[in-house]
């Protein structure tokens, strides 16, 4: 799970985060500006959200357009998160890492439209959805360029947020290893992997850095010894030891830190995003659905979900532009992404379930039947076709 550091960041600055994300769907360039969508705060008062294990109750089903504060109370036993989604799961606002039995606020600017509030116990999957209708002033129409610019801005925020989460969760993982706590280290491993897999194509754009963080035993050459997450995975899950881990944790911390610095230099474009989304799904097809990547821990479905999350974010961010240029693609992807995530959701596991792995929201790859693996592969192939068309659409004149 995420370290306290990021929790504090989120607690301290939900407005900033929210505003940055809202910018992705607004022509307003002043991303930190205050209420600008019509109604000011206090029109309807705070909206209570009860985020449970099996429910996601929202105090109101309709709202006037404007800025709203959602007061979230978690009643789950797990860490949860709450999103406000526009169609296509475009994120209007989110609060992650809500601990059990805690309260958090989410402030979001909502133009008129149909939305969903999603509670995600365990922070994965489609979550439990509650519909929300916002009436009144609609968001101003955007040009294609504005839509694309907003998408890029939104994705940059996502990548930076995920990179920060990667740094923090890697720190938690490394601290557990360095403290000699094997069980805690194992439990911390899946979450760090999730954040890495969400932004994997970005990491891959930095040449040597991706292998240093994510190489497999098969990638070892005389010049490149086995290092990174999977070298530690092998120690923890196959060799059942922390002996020899120290040089690996030191290097991992360094390399994840480098990644965090380099991410800020990436020049994001719609094409980079679209190619990244395709690359994420190609990764799923090649090394996740095959159970190749997490061969010692068997948390392949965590990586799978991470890759899908990353691709889905790209799609959601580009969706307004795609809607304008090729609506049939939006129709297809609006169907395919939930289908894939729903299928993944059928493999969620809790402590005590067969195939449960501590720290992982999904069952062990070994617990999947051949038919289940096949079904996952079929969905991945199905979504790859329309996803492969995104780049051509966003770059076409």
């Amino acid at each position, binding site marked *: 799970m995420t370290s306290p550091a990021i929790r504090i960041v989120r607690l301290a600055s939900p407005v900033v985060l929210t505003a940055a994300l809202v910018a992705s769907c607004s022509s307003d360039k002043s991303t930190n500006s205050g209420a600008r969508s019509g109604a000011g705060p206090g029109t309807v008062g705070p909206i209570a959200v009860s985020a449970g294990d099996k429910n996601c109750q929202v105090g109101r089903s309709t709202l006037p357009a404007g800025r709203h504060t959602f007061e979230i109370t978690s009643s789950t036993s797990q860490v949860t998160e709450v999103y406000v989604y526009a169609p296509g799961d475009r994120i209007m606002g989110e609060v992650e890492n809500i601990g059990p039995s805690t309260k958090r606020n989410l402030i979001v600017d909502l133009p008129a439209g149909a939305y969903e509030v999603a509670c995600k116990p365990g922070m994965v999957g489609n979550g439990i959805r509650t519909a929300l209708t916002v009436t009144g002033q609609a968001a101003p129409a955007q040009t294609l360029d504005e839509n694309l610019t907003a998408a890029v801005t939104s994705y940059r925020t996502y990548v930076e947020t995920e990179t920060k989460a990667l740094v923090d969760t890697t720190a938690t993982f490394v601290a557990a290893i360095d403290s000699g706590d094997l069980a805690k280290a194992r439990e911390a491993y899946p979450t760090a992997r999730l954040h890495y897999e969400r932004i994997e194509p970005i990491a891959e754009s930095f040449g040597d850095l991706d292998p240093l963080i994510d190489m497999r035993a098969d990638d070892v050459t005389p010049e490149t010894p086995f290092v990174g997450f999977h070298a530690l995975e092998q120690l923890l899950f196959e060799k059942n030891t922390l002996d020899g881990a120290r040089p690996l944790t030191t290097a991992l911390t360094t390399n994840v830190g480098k990644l965090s610095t380099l991410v800020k230099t990436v020049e994001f474009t719609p094409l980079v995003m679209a190619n990244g989304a395709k690359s994420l799904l190609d990764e799923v097809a090649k090394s996740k659905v095959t159970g190749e990547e997490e061969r010692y821990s068997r948390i392949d479905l965590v990586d799978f979900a991470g890759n899908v999350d990353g691709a889905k974010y790209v799609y959601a961010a580009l969706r307004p532009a795609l809607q304008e240029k090729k609506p049939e693609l939006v129709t*297809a992807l609006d*169907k*395919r992404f939930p*289908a894939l995530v729903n299928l993944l959701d059928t493999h969620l596991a809790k402590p005590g379930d067969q195939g449960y792995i501590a720290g992982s929201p999904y069952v062990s790859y070994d617990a999947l039947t051949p038919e289940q693996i096949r079904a996952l592969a*079929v969905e991945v*192939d*199905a*979504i*790859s*076709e*329309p996803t*492969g*068309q995104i*780049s*051509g*659409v966003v*770059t*076409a004149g």
Partner: protein
Amino acid sequence: MTETQHREPANGADAPAPSRRRMFGLLGGAAALGAAVGAGGTAAGLDATSDDRHGSQTPGRPVEFFGPHQAGIATPAQDRLHFAAFDLSPTVGRADLVALLTAWTAAASRMAAGQGVGTGAVTGPPGAPPDDTGEALGLPPARLTLTVGFGTSLFTDPDGRDRFGIAASRPPQLADLPAFPGDALDPAASGGDLCVQACADDPQVAVHAIRNLARIARGTASVRYSQLGFGRTSSTSTSQATPRNMMGFKDGTANLKTEDVAAMNTHVWAQPGDGPDWMTGGSYLVSRRIRMLIEPWDSTPLVEQERVIGRHKGSGAPPGLGDEFDPLNLSSKGPDGELLIDANAHVRLAHSSHNSGAVLLRRGYSFTDGTDNLGRLDAGLFFIAYQRDPRRQFVTIQNSLAGKTADALNEYIQHVGSGLFACPPGVQPGQYWGQRLLG
């Protein structure tokens, strides 16, 4: 495997090739059409009736896609096969099925004409994935035919559900095949909601076709299994030498000659009144993946192999005779008073005289899928037969053959996959496969 023979009459003027002397055929469990041929081989009065859309055997030429029947049934058997069975995704509805069949029909008609799918392999927008996968670029059409079939599960799924509202239109001929003694069917290599038989004289053309149809299907249907066949085991009209199957015996001797419209109407094409009208002009496809136990067969003495089949291995002639086309006399006895053709010989039990006259249009292919995990050749016959009523035809014949005490060949073969499909009639431009069922 089956057997029958006759001499082909001279082809009609429009027949492109000299008459091919048909050889008897191993057929892995069912009999050949025209089996009851005695001397002269006039199983069905096989005068060539010209049918231009199927007549061309010139390598590389296209076979007409549109017509009253689907191509790939009466079409002279091409050299290569890629057969694929598809399952529709659980969430798919009738509109999705229609959309798939519409897209498939459009793509199939293009590929059969030697054109790329959609905007082609290299002629579409460069920023998008090409519509066509490209490996058939520059290749001739290679007589590609694509034949679609509807499985029993399309009408009624294994849970008894009528997913597409067509259960009432299920033809009685499409009755689930019974279990036959000795079957060792792998469910993963059997059944399927849909099938596509791709045949071509170039394997790459056939594979390209299935690959592109599978790609178009993504999100709607996925491949349940597929089978490559490298050599035809049956011929309908060709000047080539009779092919031998993986047992080393000549195969495909006495198939129905598809130019014989009357015989095709009697034995292959669904006729008005047979069942639901949407199938009129269609045909029923039975597929069986028949694994040959190659190693035991190879170490069997020649006389035993010939006893099992009921023919000489070298010439293909009946026992005691010298020519492949000598008449097959099931009752002839040797000087010792024993039957010349063994009581359990494959040719005897598969013969139409043994099966109430039942015959089939065989269109099977030899396959070799490398070796199994015991190092044995994974080879055999991918049996495909078309017929008007499987209950009366395939099932009758297979009931004669199956079982330990029946066909002597059963010691050396095993049926490991099975499929039953209703292949609707052909389409005209603007129509889609199965439109009379789903439209």
